[in-house]
C-alpha cells in the first residue's frame, strides 16, 4: 500500500544531505570537543562551526547559543533555570493557555514550588493580544514565555509586539519556536526575543538535539551540573554528530526557505479548499496568520481518534493534534482555549506537510477523506448513541 506522511509537525525524516554531513562524526572524527589533542580539536571545530551556522540564522551571537538534548530540555531550562536565578527578584511568570506540555508542566511544577503563574487566554483563532500581556505584567514578573507558532493549529503569534511589551516593562521574554524555527524567518533582535528554544528533528535533522538562545547578560541556573560544557549551562559530552546534523539541517532550511514556504503555502491552500468542501468541516486556527505547513480541521460528529486510525489503514499518517497527547483521550487544551466545545475538540485532525509532501498526496487525501468522514458519521456516538440493550 502507498504510504503518505502528513505528520511533519510530530517529527520529520532526516534529510539525506544531513545524514551525509553527520557520518564522518561517528567513527572518523569522533573526538570529544573538550579534549586538547587533535581528535578533540577536530570535533571542537565542527561544534563551533555548527553553533555559528545556527546563531547566524536567527541573528544571534555565537556565544548566545547553547546546545541541549531536546526542546523540552531547552524549555525546562528556561522556566526552571530563570525562576531559580531570579527568585529574589520575583516569583511571577506569564505563559499562555496554548503552550506545549513541556512549558505547561514546567510552569505547573513551579507553581507547586510557590511561583505564581498567569496563563494568558487566546482569541478564537488562537491569537494572543499584546495588550493582555501588558496588563498581566506585574512588578514581580520575572519571565514571559509564549509559544511562537502553535504545534497544533499553526497560528503564529505577534511575537515582535509581545516582545516589545516585555521590553518596555523590563521583563525577560522567551519564545518556544520549535514549530516556526526553520520554517519562517526569525530575528531575535528585530523581534525583541531574549530567549528562544528550537529543535532539530522538526526540520529534517536528527532527534536528540536542540538549542537554546540566551541573550548575553541573562543569568540562568543550569539543570545539569558537571564538566562545564556549553559555557557551564549544559554539562554533558557534546553530541557532535547530532549537532553537525542540526546545523546542516538549518543550512538547508535557510537556503530553501522562501521557495519551500511558497510551495507549502500553495499545497495547504489546496488542501484547505478541498477539505472545507466536506459538509460540517471547519478550519481551526487563523486562516492567514499561520505556518504554511500546519493545517488543523474539525468535523462535526466525528471523533478524531477514529478518523486517524481509519486514515492510517488507508496508508495516510495524520494526527489529532500533538503526538504527545495522543495517548490520552483528553481533548486538546489548545482547541479548548480557542473556545471549542468538548466534542468539537475531540473531532480534530491535524494535517502537517513537509519537504516531501506532493500535490498528488493532497489530491489523494481530498479524494478519500469525504467518504471516511461520511462512514464515521453514520455510526457517530455523538449523533446517535450506538447502544446495546
Amino acid at each position, binding site marked *: 500500500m502507498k504510504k503518505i506522511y502528513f505528520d511533519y509537525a510530530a517529527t520529520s525524516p532526516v534529510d539525506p544531505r544531513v545524514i551525509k554531513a553527520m557520518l564522518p562524526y561517528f567513527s572518523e572524527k569522533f573526538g570529544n570537543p573538550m579534549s586538547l589533542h587533535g581528535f578533540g580539536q577536530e570535533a571542537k571545530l565542527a561544534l563551533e562551526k555548527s553553533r555559528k551556522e545556527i546563531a547566524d540564522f536567527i541573528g544571534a551571537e555565537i556565544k548566545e547559543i547553547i546546545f541541549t538534548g531536546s526542546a523540552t530540555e531547552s524549555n525546562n531550562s528556561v522556566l526552571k533555570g530563570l525562576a531559580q536565578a531570579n527568585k529574589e527578584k520575583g516569583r511571577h511568570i506569564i505563559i499562555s493557555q496554548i503552550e506545549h506540555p513541556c512549558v505547561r508542566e514546567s510552569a505547573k511544577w513551579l507553581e507547586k514550588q510557590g511561583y505564581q503563574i498567569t496563563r494568558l487566554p487566546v482569541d478564537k483563532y488562537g491569537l494572543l493580544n499584546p495588550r493582555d500581556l501588558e496588563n498581566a505584567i506585574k512588578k514581580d514578573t520575572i519571565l514571559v514565555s509564549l509559544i511562537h507558532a502553535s504545534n497544533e493549529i499553526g497560528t503564529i503569534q505577534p511575537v515582535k509586539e509581545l516582545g516589545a511589551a516585555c521590553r518596555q516593562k523590563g521583563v525577560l521574554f522567551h519564545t518556544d519556536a520549535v514549530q516556526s524555527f526553520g520554517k519562517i524567518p526569525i530575528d531575535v533582535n528585530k523581534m525583541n526575543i531574549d530567549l528562544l528554544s528550537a529543535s532539530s528533528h522538526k526540520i529534517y535533522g536528527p532527534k536528540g538535539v536542540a538549542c537554546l538562545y540566551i541573550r548575553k547578560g541573562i543569568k540562568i541556573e543550569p539543570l545539569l551540573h558537571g564538566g562545564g560544557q556549553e559555557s557551564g549551562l549544559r554539562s554533558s559530552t557534546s553530541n557532535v554528530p547530532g549537532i553537525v546534523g542540526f546545523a546542516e539541517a538549518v543550512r538547508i532550511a535557510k537556503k530553501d526557505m522562501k521557495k519551500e514556504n511558497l510551495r507549502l503555502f500553495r499545497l495547504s491552500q489546496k488542501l484547505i479548499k478541498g477539505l472545507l468542501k466536506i459538509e460540517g468541516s471547519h478550519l481551526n486556527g487563523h486562516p492567514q496568520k499561520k505556518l504554511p505547513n500546519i493545517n488543523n480541521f474539525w468535523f462535526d460528529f466525528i471523533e478524531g481518534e*477514529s478518523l486517524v*486510525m*481509519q486514515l492510517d*489503514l488507508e496508508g495516510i499518517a495524520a494526527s489529532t493534534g500533538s503526538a504527545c497527547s495522543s*495517548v490520552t*483521550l483528553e481533548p486538546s487544551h489548545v482547541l479548548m482555549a480557542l473556545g471549542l466545545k468538548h466534542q468539537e475538540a475531540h473531532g480534530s485532525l491535524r494535517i502537517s506537510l513537509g519537504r516531501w509532501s506532493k500535490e498528488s498526496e493532497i489530491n489523494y487525501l481530498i479524494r478519500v477523506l469525504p467518504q471516511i468522514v461520511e462512514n464515521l458519521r453514520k*455510526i457517530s*456516538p455523538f449523533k446517535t448513541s450506538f447502544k*446495546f*440493550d
Partner: protein
Amino acid sequence: MERNKGRKVVCAMSGGVDSSVAAALLKKEGFDVVGVFMKFWSDEDHSAKDCDYNRCCSPESERRAREVASILEIPFYVLNFKNEFKKRVVDYFLKTYKKGSTPNPCVVCNKEIKFGMLLEKAIKLQADFIATGHYARIKRKKNEVSLLRSQDRNKDQSYFLWTLSQKQLEKVLFPIGNYLRSEVEKMAEKLKLPFEGVKKSQEVCFVPKTLEEFLSKYLKNKAGEIVDRKGKTVGRHSGLWFYTLGQRKRIGLSGGPYYAIDKDFRRNRLIVSSNEKDLLREELVFTEVNWISGKEPDLPLEVKAKIRYRSQSASAVINKDQKHKVYSLRFKVAQRAVTPGQSVVFYKGEELLGGGIIL
C-alpha cells in the same frame, strides 16, 4: 481463505498466547486483521516502589502485543479505555461489594468494554467483525447466531459471555474456540511468537495485590458480629466484604471449622455454621436476564446451569413468576454456596442459552 479476502477484523490483542494465536489464525484465514490493545484502568501508583499495573494491560503485555502484531505484519493500535473501564467496570465492582454481593467484573467488561466500546470502535473502522481470544464457539444459523461452549472443556469461557446479544454476536469471531489450549500453545510455538515465561492472567485484573487491600482502600470497613444460625454471637469480623460464601479459612473462630453461610448486611452480621450442609441450596432467584437468542424460551425449561466459572453445570429447571417477573432456578441436586451477585448461566447441550445475576 479467498472468501475472507477484504473482510476486516479488529482483533483484541492482550499480548497473551490466546489472543495472539487468534490474530494469527485470522490472518491465516485471509482476513484483513487489525490488532488493537486496550488500556484499562488500574490502581497504580507510579511513585510506589513496586508499581502495579493492570495485569491485562501492563506495559510488558503491550510491548508483547505490539511485537506479535509486527511479526504477523498487521496494523496495531492502542485504545485507551481507562476512564470508561473505571466508570463501567470498577465502579460497578465496588458498588456491588458495597451492596453486599459478589460481582463478576469480567462479565461486565465483556458486555461494556470488549463487546461494547471496542465493537463500536471497530464498526467505525468499517470492520466486519471483532475477534477475541475467548474460549467459546459461535455457530451461525440462517436467522440466528448461537454461542457454544469451547472445544476445550477445561478452558471454556462461555460463562463470561452470557450478556451478549444477537446484534453483538453477528459481529463476533472466536478464532481459538475450536482448539484445545494445548493446541493453541503449540501454534504459538510454531509461529515463533514470543511467550517464554508469560504468566496466565487469572485474578481480577485491576486489583494489584489482595482483594482485601483493594476493598479496604475504596470501601469503608465496618467491624461487626459473627453469629451462628440461631443468632448467637460467636465472634467479631472486620468487615463483611472480605468474606465469600462457603469460605472456611480466615474466619478466625476457635472450635471450627466454621463456614461463612450468609451475610446480613442490614445488621452487618456474618452468619457462620460448622455444618457444611448449611451451605447447600436447592433454589435460587435471579434477575437481569439475557437470552442469547433474543427471545425468551417457553418456561419452565429444563437446563444445565452453572453458578460460578469454576463449577460443574448441574441439572435444573427455570421458572418464572409471571406476576412479579422474577426468575427462579430449582436444582435437582442442591448446590453449595450460591453467591448473590455472581452470574448464573444456562446451557442446553453445547449451547449457551443465556444467564442472569443471582439475587
